[in-house]
């Protein structure tokens, strides 16, 4: 069992001892499948955005697939996941229906949020996916709150709360870390460090290096993982999850990754060089895992091509589904504001149109 101990750096870390059972070939292929699905889904979304079928903001996850897939793969189905606005990958990794996700991007009634949330606000209660949040770091207190409830209700469940490297400089995250550590909440804060917040590099936004130091202030456990290697992501996440589940201790998990596309579809990305981008694409998480599985003999090129073909099909089906799906009636803007009252009588006037 991992225990918190302090390195000379002052960063509390979790002693790694392998907690993960070896994966069956089928399980390994499933990880690859999920990463491929995210990649192809996002490419399709990009296409739909260029066709103006998707509006507003659209933040793509391409390049970061191993992070969402790896972290979520070590969770139980009933553990909770909450993230920021770059949420397509997490939703799909959590098992959300690609059709409903794409329909949400198209703003259709069949979307996972009935077309009211959009790209930044995916939600799926059944999948224990708590969104999809547009305000930078605004989800970090919510993540602690979900963990608070999990602990209060003795569920034995844990929460993965993702945030970007730029989000660590919001006060809400600092308050959340202190509260999570002080109250021993089973939450894992996963910093998806893709080196940039829009056009601002970590070095230009954040004093202190590495980011795991942000945990020192609270004597909180901290770990780093390589976000391009799904196996490393899984191992480090497993340590943190185990610590949360067995000792109800939070962990700050910094995962280094990289986004291939612009911050959002409207970002030309002048702030980085082609070489820098290429360097990261050369360690592509999907190619890397494909290679590993082929070396292990779990996979051959033909199977991979089939899997990739299938991923493209699913993405295309999602696109077709979303396109055909009906628009919501505009009057439905008045629905979903309030939950029906069950313990008191309905509140009068609430649904009155204010003149």
């Amino acid at each position, binding site marked *: 069992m991992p225990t918190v101990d302090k390195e000379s750096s002052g960063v509390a870390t979790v002693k790694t001892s392998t907690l993960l059972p070896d994966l069956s070939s089928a399980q390994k292929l499933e990880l690859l499948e999920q990463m491929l699905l995210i990649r192809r889904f996002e490419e399709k979304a990009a296409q739909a955005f260029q066709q103006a079928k998707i509006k507003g903001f659209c933040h793509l996850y391409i390049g970061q697939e191993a992070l969402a897939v790896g972290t979520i793969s070590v969770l139980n189905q009933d553990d*909770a996941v*909450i993230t920021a606005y770059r949420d397509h990958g997490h939703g799909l990794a959590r098992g959300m229906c690609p059709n409903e996700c794409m329909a949400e991007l198209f703003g259709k009634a069949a*979307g*996972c*949020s*009935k*077309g*009211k*949330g959009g790209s930044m*606000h995916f*939600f*799926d*209660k059944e999948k224990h996916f*708590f*969104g*999809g*949040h*547009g*305000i930078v770091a*605004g989800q*970090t*207190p*919510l*993540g*602690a*709150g*979900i*963990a*608070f*409830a*999990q602990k*209060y*209700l003795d569920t034995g469940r844990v929460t993965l709360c993702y945030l970007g490297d730029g989000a660590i400089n919001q*006060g*809400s995250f600092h*308050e*959340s870390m*202190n*509260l999570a550590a*002080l109250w021993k909440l089973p939450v894992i804060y996963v910093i998806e460090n893709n080196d940039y917040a829009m056009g601002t590099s970590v070095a230009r936004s954040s004093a202190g290096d590495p980011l795991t130091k942000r945990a020192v202030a609270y004597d909180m456990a901290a770990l780093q993982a390589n976000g391009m290697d799904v196996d490393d992501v899984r191992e480090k996440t497993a340590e943190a999850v185990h610590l949360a589940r067995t000792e109800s201790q939070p962990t700050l998990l910094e995962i280094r990754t990289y986004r291939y596309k612009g911050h959002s579809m409207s970002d030309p990305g002048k702030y980085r060089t082609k070489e820098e981008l290429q360097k990261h694409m050369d360690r592509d998480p999907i190619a890397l895992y494909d290679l590993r599985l082929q070396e292990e003999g779990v996979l051959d090129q033909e199977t991979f091509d089939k899997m990739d073909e299938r991923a493209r099909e699913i993405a295309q089906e999602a696109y077709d589904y979303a396109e055909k799906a009906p628009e919501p009636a505009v009057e439905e803007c008045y*629905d*979903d*504001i*309030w*939950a*029906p*009252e*069950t*313990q*008191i*009588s309905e*509140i*009068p*006037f*609430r649904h*009155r149109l*204010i*003149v």
Partner: protein
Amino acid sequence: MAQLFYREALNQAMCEEMERDDTVVLMGEEVAEYDGAYKVSQGMLDKFGPKRVIDTPISECGFAGIGIGAATYGLRPIVEFMTWSFSLVAYDQIVNNAAQVRYMSGGQFEVPIVFRGSSGGGLQVGATHSHCPENWYANVPALTVITPAFPDDAKGLLKSAIRSNNPVCFIENEKLYGFKDEVPDEEYLTPIGKARTVREGDDFTLITNSGSTHRALEAGKALADDGIEAEIIDLRTVKPLDMDTILESVRRNHRVLIVEENKPFAGWGAQVAYEIQALAFDELDAPIMRVASRDVPQPYNGNMEQYVLPNPERIAETAKKLLA
């Protein structure tokens, strides 16, 4: 009926609901070991223990968000702001998360949470500590805003708020914690969204809420001595507005005075005035008038602060202008 302080009535409401429902928890600064900065949660730690009555660090943004997250998971948190003035650092959590997560999720998640605490001026705590946030929150589509003026309403409305499946801003008034009045002994709920006529009169209709209700009643007495009878409506719930009760009275009295502690520019009284003239234009014999806080930051000096607040003298004077 028992005579209870406003603060005791609130305490009873929370205790009764926590006994009734294990998912109700109270969190906030000094609510547990200190018994509450204003003693509203007196004795609750002993009754319910540290798991359910929780002292927080001074992190309003953080613990408001924790309450919201916990609410989406099925708890029914009561989040106390020592005063609503301190909710400004949590404004984003309340507006963007508590009030919008249900909508943005297409109705998947419920957010049954009550934010409550003290508010308002009159105790010389200065500009940073005297805010009246009714309008800041009532402007936000999904939020329900409750502002009780009497102990019985404080209890009955807080119980209803805790049982609501939706986010409620429950805005108490610091000057009222020590106000004592009758509270029914048997259990009861006060309906949210219903105003209460606290004085009947046929010369004009005065619409008010919270601490201002008491100043209005004082003014009402003084006016009665001059033969002017005010009908005074205590909104109790600022949003949604009980326009039925308001319009019924306006149709009888044809003159309206609104008394609010909000700063005037787009305070809640402006909305009430707008709706009255929109819905009962032909019933009005005179322009609707308002007595709000003066449009200045809250001064510390006592006389100056009373001058800034809607005090009984200003209310009575304005009423006389209204009837002139």
